[in-house]
């Protein structure tokens, strides 16, 4: 307990940054001259950096197993509902915060180069700061309602940033979709909280109280039922935020946003919020093994489905998006098998790897002047050597080549899956197959983008250039993370999650590495020769289309279509009611004044109606009351 800084200082910095930059963006609206980018950029980096430094100070001064808690004040306080603004800093928070603030700082630096010259430069950086604030609240909150505040906050920032280039309505449609699909999950979050309130009042929404209540044991089967319902709905919320079946359709569309956003929000940080929540509520899920098993099944299905979808995409960012969905599936697999620490480990390593991949992809897109179709790339290794080396390391890490960071976490996940119950080996097999597919689609991406000959037009080829230094330095730091994150992990956490028995770790490592090599080799062999031809349009066809949009079709069938039918029917009902109203107004008029005066004095008609109706009502009342 050596540190004296209050915890709220960590989210305070980015909030200040968001407000400052937002104010500058609004004030500068009228002036012809844009705000000086260097000054704005320095401000935008300063606040996340301060936040990161504050986190490091906290983390380094923290003894093992210590917990800092801090309550700022009441939020909602009425009767049995008592919700306060409180922060909780334990080892789980520590890890999340370290990489969230660190990677955000790096990506803000990268954005300075990527967004240079964009008219919304200041606004963009303001949103990034607002996002960091929400994300910090999400992981630092000590209770579910406050986490929900951050949860919706990151959703809102995601909405704002996906639709950042708002002159194109397609981007706005993607943003709306992301917000709406997340909103469906959020309703699950609310219902989950309500179910918990039933069990133990609103105090149980506090994580520590919840864990204590759970450790104290569940009294009756009634509250056990509510516990299952709560766990189910909270996991449902996670499927929204972390893009799992059935709410995963928004994430590939979210690639409409600028690439730094895809790297930060839709790969490294926000989408892992679901995994964080499951880990945070680990005790609740451990107490409801049915839901945990359900989590495992959903995760396996999602990982496999997304890996196959990743195989058939043409858009470089879409490949990475489906890869993210698939990797999130791996994280939930670990959580479903009860290995919450491993899930967070994979969150940690994946954050560096996927952020580096996306930033490198952004660098490629930047170099090609906005081209995203991998069929029109190729041979970029010699032209973009720095980007290629970054991509190479990140790629090697993601497919799980031994020694790199994602290898360690993925290996642990597979190991824990194998040991999970009697059908563990089956799950292990599916997960191993998914890992093989990961190696295949990632290698396909690498081969098509960087090897062979350039397939774009000559004009683009002339203008290919390496990204500026301000974009490269963050990528190289992330590459360091891709290599070493696996090694610094053992020093970081001290979870009290249940540990399971270890099998021979070496065997699993060898099998995992071999599978990665197999996928790698196969993909290189196959895609070196068979390069998909550019067909003149970017839309998917045939199997690729059916498979990719399977869940979009499902959503259309069970959500959008019924809604349109309901709209149609209710509109008829509404018309009928309006016509009834008008007819009721017209009938007395006809009776009173005859057809001739039908278009004359409407006021009189209405008055007569009121008299008649009054009489009718009096009669009815007298009739009923007697």
């Amino acid at each position: 307990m050596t540190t004296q800084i209050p915890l709220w200082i960590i989210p305070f910095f980015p909030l200040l940054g968001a407000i400052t930059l937002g104010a500058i963006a609004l004030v500068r609206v009228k002036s012809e001259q844009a705000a000086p980018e260097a000054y704005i950029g320095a401000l935008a980096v300063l606040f996340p950096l301060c936040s990161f430094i504050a986190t490091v100070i906290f983390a380094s001064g923290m003894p093992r197993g210590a917990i800092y808690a801090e309550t700022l004040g009441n939020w909602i306080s009425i009767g049995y509902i008592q919700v306060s603004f409180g922060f909780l800093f334990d080892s789980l928070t520590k890890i999340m915060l370290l990489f969230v603030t660190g990677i955000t700082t790096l990506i803000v630096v990268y954005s300075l180069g990527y967004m240079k010259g964009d008219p919304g430069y200041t606004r963009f950086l303001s949103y990034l700061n607002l996002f960091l604030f929400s994300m910090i609240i999400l992981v630092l909150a000590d209770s579910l309602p406050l986490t929900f505040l951050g949860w919706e906050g990151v959703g809102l920032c995601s909405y704002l940033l996906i639709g950042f280039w708002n002159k194109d309505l397609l981007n706005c449609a993607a943003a709306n979709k992301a917000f709406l699909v997340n909103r469906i999950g959020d309703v699950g979050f609310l219902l989950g909280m309500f179910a918990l309130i039933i069990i133990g009042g609103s105090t149980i929404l506090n994580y520590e109280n919840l864990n204590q209540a759970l450790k104290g044991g569940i009294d009756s089967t009634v509250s056990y039922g509510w516990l299952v319902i709560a766990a189910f709905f909270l996991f449902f919320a996670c499927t929204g935020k972390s893009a799992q079946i059935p709410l995963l359709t928004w994430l590939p569309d979210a690639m409409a946003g600028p690439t730094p956003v895809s790297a930060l929000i839709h790969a490294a940080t926000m989408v892992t919020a679901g995994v964080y929540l499951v880990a945070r509520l680990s005790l609740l899920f451990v107490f409801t093994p049915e839901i945990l098993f359900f989590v495992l099944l959903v995760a396996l299905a999602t990982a496999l489905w997304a890996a196959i979808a990743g195989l058939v995409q043409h858009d470089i960012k879409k490949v990475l998006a489906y890869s993210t969905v698939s990797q999130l599936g791996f994280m939930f697999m670990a959580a479903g098998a009860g290995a919450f620490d491993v899930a967070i480990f994979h969150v940690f390593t994946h954050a560096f790897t996927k952020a580096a991949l996306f930033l490198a992809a952004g660098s490629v897109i930047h170099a090609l002047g906005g081209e995203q179709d991998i069929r029109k790339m190729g041979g970029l290794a010699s032209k973009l050597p720095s980007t290629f080396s970054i991509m190479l390391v990140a790629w090697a890490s993601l497919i799980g080549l031994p020694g790199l960071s994602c290898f360690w976490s993925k290996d642990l996940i597979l190991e824990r899956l194998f040991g999970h119950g009697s059908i563990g080996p089956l799950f292990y097999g599916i997960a191993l197959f998914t890992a093989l597919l990961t190696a295949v689609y990632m290698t396909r991406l690498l081969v098509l983008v960087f090897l062979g000959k350039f397939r774009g037009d000559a004009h683009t080829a002339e203008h290919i250039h390496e990204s500026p230094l301000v974009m490269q330095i963050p990528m190289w730091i992330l590459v360091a993370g891709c290599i070493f994150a696996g090694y610094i992990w053992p020093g970081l956490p001290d979870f009290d999650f249940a540990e399971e028995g270890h099998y021979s770790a070496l065997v699993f490592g060898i099998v995992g590495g071999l599978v990665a090599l197999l996928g790698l080799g196969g993909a290189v062999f196959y895609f070196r020769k068979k390069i998909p031809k550019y067909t003149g349009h970017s839309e998917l066809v045939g199997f690729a289309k059916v498979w990719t949009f399977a869940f979009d079709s499902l959503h259309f069938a069970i959500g959008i279509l019924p809604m349109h039918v309901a709209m149609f029917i209710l509109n008829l009902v509404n018309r009928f009611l309006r016509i009834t109203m008008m007819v009721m107004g017209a009938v007395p008029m006809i009776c009173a004044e005859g057809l001739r005066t039908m278009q004359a004095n409407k006021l009189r008609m209405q008055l007569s109606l009121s008299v008649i109706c009054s009489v009718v009502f009096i009669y009815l009342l007298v009739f009923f009351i007697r």
Partner: protein
Amino acid sequence: MLISLLLILPFVFSCLMLAASSRDVNSSFRIGLFCTAVPFVLATALVMLGGQQTPSYAWFSILGIDVEFSLYGYGLSLWMAWLATLLSLLAYAYFKGMPGFEIKKFTIGLLVLEGTIIGAFLSAQNIVQFLFFFEAMVLPAAILMALHGGLKRRRAVIVFTLYTLIGSVPLLFGAWYLMIKAGSDNINILTETLRVLPISTQLSLLLAFSLAFAVKTPIFPFHSWQGITYSEAPYPLSAVLSGAMAKVGVFGFAVWIIQIFGSILQTSHYDIYFIVLALLSMLYSAILALRQTNVKKLLAFSSMSHLSLAVAGLFCFNDVVNAGIAVMLVGHGLTAGGLFFLSGIVQKWTGSTNIKQYSAFVSTNPIYAAIFGFVGIAAVSVPCTVGFVGEFLILQGFFYSSFPFFALIGGVGIICSAAYMLRLIKNVLFGPIPENSRRAGISLSFSEGAAAIPIIAFILYFGLHPAPILNSFGPPQDSANNTFIEQEEQEFEEEEDFERMGEHNAQELEEAGDDN
């Protein structure tokens, strides 16, 4: 004292405005601004004091009914009155920029409307007084609409006036019947009287009472008046109508239905029907809002959807939910009112009410877009804004009061509300800048910009710190005990009076019968 001033001043000021010059627009505007600002200051002071109440004064006596007059300013009454004064002030500030307005007439009408709405909210004790204001508020609204409305305003005025007035006819007769039985118009005596009536009579009265409030709120299927009314009324008036006047309907449910008919509702389990109807109404209006292209109709349905949820929450009979409803109504007043004001500005700029005609205001008017985006997102009830606190408390009430399934339906409503709001935001703010648009010179006027500040400030303030509203409902356990004790004492004191009055009434009734 303060509370009496709050009621009287708008009427006094409206008389003062008669003396204002209709030619010197600027001086009239300043006088009018003073006239609308003072009630808001008074209401804010009242809120800070925690509420006030006047004793009951004998008003008049007719047919053996002792009619009293008293003002009650606590809890929901207090906050709704506060909201009415705030929205009137903002409506006034926004209306300055509207083309073709006659400042003097509008101000007089607005002040009278404000006074009647405040009067209705502060009448939580005596039903005659409530009915007086409940009916009276229709007239200034109709006159304002007739003065400044759209092309079809004549029809709109007739529909609005007659529909709402006829809707309250059953309430008039029901209240009359109950008062004759009770010999008083005090709510507590009415409640006592109702308990001794036969069940069938109680239910008939319940239907008669609820019809009026269902029309006013409105609740499906009694909402046909609102589409044409809101779309023909001038924007500032629509804001006051949906932000403050429609809440008289919810307030009517909260006071006159829940308090008087509370026991019969719970014993007969009729509350379920009310919840189902209100939730149906919520879904119905939310789904219809999804396909509206007229911005006013869209906002009207959105308003109906939120208020229906509030009405549904009332029938949980849960103190926490009631406090949540107050928060939600304040939030809804701010967001719905704000959106009406803001879309009025767009209509002024583009000359259209069709949202398909709007586009790209974020590119041409970023400050306006920031305000519109903020209020629009607040209408979706994201945490940090006041709407979230309200919806959270109401929906948890469904769970807590053993209707978990209804919370799920409420959730569907929330999703729909996000869908139509995002659609509205997308249409107004985003998209390509239209060619040959006359966007160059347009910007927010000072009063329009300034009026947005309190909206945003209160949305955030109550979203982060709803304690001022929640505390006015007190810690439920304590307040429940207190009111219970008070009631018991009152009952004890009044028992003899009550019996005597009852006999008296019965005698009079018999005499009246003999005469007939």
